């Protein structure tokens, strides 16, 4: 791995273990997340990549019996996101998430995007209008919806819904944006639009993306981590991982002999 030209760290997992009750789902994960880069998590189903992703915004806190061990350090302030003293709501204020299936709220397009701002107590109509427009532009959906911001969001097409969800996450200026297989419910054209968007967004925000689709990982990411059975097998620059993986298991997966 290269030592020089390494970008700044945005987050870092250190000896991170995760347990669903008694079952250990993640084992001793150590991994950097670089600032304003796209990092892809790949691996076969059940390897723990979504579990890992959902640890960054403490989604596991919503369900009883889950337990974190170790640290995920968040920079620049070096906060341990997993610390019990850290309020998960504060974490989620800084870390946005886009889900596998588009999940717009049963509200208007405008209110969906304004949601996070309202949660944060923003009342000023002009600020809201501005940020909603900015977020919709950032998610490359402004042109399609600007004339019908008061329509109900669930009436949009699947691809539009997903871009709306991205706009919703962007509106609050998150520092890290988590994507959990964001295109698995979408057709190829909508998928292409989302991938382009991810590429565009990394100018503004650090991105961590789980994907089942290796071509997608190769297309959109700067760094790739291969996970298998709850372990981080290999992490590196995407071109290096895909061209000459160091680990036999990574190679098998990438070449389609496994998974």
């Amino acid at each position, binding site marked *: 791995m290269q030592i020089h030209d390494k970008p700044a760290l945005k987050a870092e997992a250190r000896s991170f273990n995760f347990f669903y009750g008694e079952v250990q789902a993640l084992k001793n994960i150590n991994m950097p997340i670089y600032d304003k880069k796209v990092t892809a998590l790949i691996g076969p189903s059940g390897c723990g990549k979504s579990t890992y992703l959902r640890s960054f915004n403490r*989604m596991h806190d919503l369900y009883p019996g889950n337990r974190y061990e170790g640290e995920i350090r968040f920079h620049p302030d070096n906060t341990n996101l997993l610390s019990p003293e850290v309020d998960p*709501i504060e974490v989620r*204020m800084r870390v946005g998430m886009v*889900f596998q299936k588009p999940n717009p*709220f*049963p509200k208007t397009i405008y209110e969906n995007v304004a*949601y996070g701002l309202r*949660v*944060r107590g923003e009342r000023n109509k002009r600020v809201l209008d501005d940020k909603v427009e900015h977020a919709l532009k950032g998610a490359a959906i402004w042109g399609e919806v600007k004339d019908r911001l008061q329509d109900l969001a669930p009436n949009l097409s699947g691809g539009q819904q997903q871009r709306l969800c991205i706009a919703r996450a962007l509106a609050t200026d998150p520092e890290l944006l988590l994507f959990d297989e964001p295109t698995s419910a979408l057709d190829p054209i909508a998928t292409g639009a989302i991938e382009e968007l991810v590429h565009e967004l990394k100018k503004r925000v650090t991105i961590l993306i789980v994907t089942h689709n290796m071509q997608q990982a190769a297309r959109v990411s700067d760094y790739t981590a291969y996970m298998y059975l709850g372990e981080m097998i290999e992490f590196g620059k995407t071109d290096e991982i895909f061209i000459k993986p160091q680990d036999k298991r990574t190679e098998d997966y990438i070449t389609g002999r496994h998974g």
Partner: protein
Amino acid sequence: MTAHNASDLPRISDRLAKNALRNVSERIIEAILFAAAAVSVLTTIGIVYVLVSESIHFFAQVSIVDFLTDTQWTPLFDDAHFGIMVLVSGTLVSSFVALAVAIPMGTIIAIYLSEFANPKVREIAKPVLELLGGIPTIVFGYFALLIVTPVLQKIFPELPGFSLLSAGLVMGIMIVPYVASLSEDAMRAVPMSLREGAFAMGSTRLYTALHVVVPAAFSGLAASYILGISRAVGETMILAVAAGMQPNLTWNPMEPAATITSYIVQVALGDLPHGSIGYQTIFAAGLTLLLITLCFNILGQWLRRKFRENY
């Protein structure tokens, strides 16, 4: 499907014959199912027929305008008046009091059970709550008369022994389980992915419940409210026992009054000659009640369609 050797397979003609037999049995089953469905439809039609045909006799003697505008309801007096608004007012006031209790309480309980309670609490609380819905209404009626009214009289010394307030409050408590249980079902049917989306935006549990789950479940909540309204409008025993039965055109819950249902029960218990005008008032009152609940059901259907879950 089980594996067969080619020789085990029935010949094509045999298979056709079997299909024909299957068609016959399907037809028979369909007929049985249709008959079962028809019974309830025919019963409804029968009830409507009886109500309407008897009411026609009634309205041959009393004009609809008098029926709707007269301010007295004295069908059994020499100076007979047939102002249904007297009974409707009692029904609406007691229902309003009941719903003022049942809808907020039921919704709050549903939000708690669906969004806050841990599974163990919910597993115990929900059946207990539903048990409350199984208590006979006559028990609720005496609860209102013997316990709630005296307690209320401590707060409002001028409250009479029978009142719409007392009956309405207890009726509300009776309806709470229906509203809570149905609302909880509707809220639990909201997919977890919506909640996760809300939490991921940094919302608290309460904010998620009020701003995402409740709007998403709105059509189900509306349906539960409509059911609550229908229960309140049609409730009889609590009102007959605790609200007094004297017809009284009032919008004040602190007074006693008869409702449509309690009037019907009162008159039906007496021995009115068949075909007399007093006898026919039962049907006119019943028809009015049916129309009121019909309105609410139509409103409910409309709300359901307008706010169909589209998550």
